[in-house]
C-alpha cells in the first residue's frame, strides 16, 4: 500500500503551488482557480487521514467542503463579472479603489 506520508507530501506540494499562484498571478480568474487548487489539496489530506484512521468523518467533511466551494465559486464569479463590467479588466492591480 501507499504510505500516508506520500499523500501528505503531495498535498503540501499542491497547496504550495496554489499559494504561489495567488502570489504571482495578476489575473483574478487564475487567482480564483489557485484557491480551488488549495481547497483540493486540503481535501486530499483530509481523505488520506480519514482513510488512515479508518473513519468516515473525514469523507463527510470533504463533502461539505465541496459544497461550500461550489457556493463560493458562484458568488466569486458573480463579483468578478461585476468588477469586469465597471473596470473593463480583471487585473487585480487595477482594483485599487473601493468605489467603482
Amino acid at each position, binding site marked *: *500500500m*501507499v*504510505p*500516508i*506520508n*506520500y*499523500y*501528505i*507530501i*503531495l*498535498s*503540501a506540494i*499542491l497547496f*504550495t*503551488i496554489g*499559494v*504561489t*499562484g495567488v*502570489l*504571482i*498571478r*495578476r*489575473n483574478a*480568474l*487564475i487567482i*480564483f*482557480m*489557485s484557491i480551488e*487548487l488549495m481547497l*483540493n489539496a486540503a*481535501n*486530499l*489530506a483530509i*481523505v*488520506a*487521514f480519514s*482513510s*488512515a*484512521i479508518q473513519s*468516515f468523518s473525514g*469523507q*463527510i467533511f*470533504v*463533502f*461539505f467542503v*465541496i*459544497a461550500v466551494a*461550489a*457556493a463560493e*465559486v*458562484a*458568488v466569486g*464569479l458573480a*463579483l*468578478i*463579472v*461585476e468588477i*469586469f463590467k465597471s473596470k473593463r479588466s480583471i*487585473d487585480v*492591480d487595477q482594483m485599487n479603489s473601493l468605489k467603482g
Partner: protein
Amino acid sequence: MTLDLALFLVLALVAIATALGLLMSRNAVYSALFLVLNFVTVAVFYLLLGAPFIAMAQVTVYAGAIMVLFLFVIMLLGADALPKTDVLPWQKPLAIFMAVILAGEAAFLLITKARPAGDILQPEAAINSMDNLRQLGMALFSDYLLPFEVTSILLLVAMVGAIVLTHKEKGAQK
C-alpha cells in the same frame, strides 16, 4: 514496487505537472483545462484511498459544474488573453522563495508531528463501494444532519447572492 505505488507516483507527477501548468500558462482557458485534469487525478487518488463517493462528487461537482462555470466566465469576459501589465520585478522570486519554505515546513510538520499510521490500510468493507455509500449516507443523515441542512441554506443564499449581484434593476441608472 506494488501496483498501487506505481499508480500513485504516476498520478502524483500528473497532478503536480497540471498544477504547474495552471500556474504558468498565459491563456486562462488553458489554465482552466489544466485544473480540470488536476481535479480528475485527485478523484483517482480518492478512489485509491477507498472513498468512491467523494471521487464521484469530485468529478461531477468540481470537474463538471465548477470548471464549466469558470470556462463560461472566461469566455464571457473575453479575458483569455489579457494584456501584460507591469509587474513588480522582485515579487515573483520572493513569492517562489517563500512558497518553497512553506512547502518544506508543511511537509516537515505533517510528517513529524501528525503521524497517525504508517501505511494506509484498506478495510475490506471500504473496498465495496455500495457499503461505503451506505455507511456514508447513514452518517450524513444521522450524526451530520444539521450541517447538511445548513449547507443547503448556504447554497440557497449563494444562489440568491449571485443573482442579486449580477441582476440589473429596471430603470436603475447605469
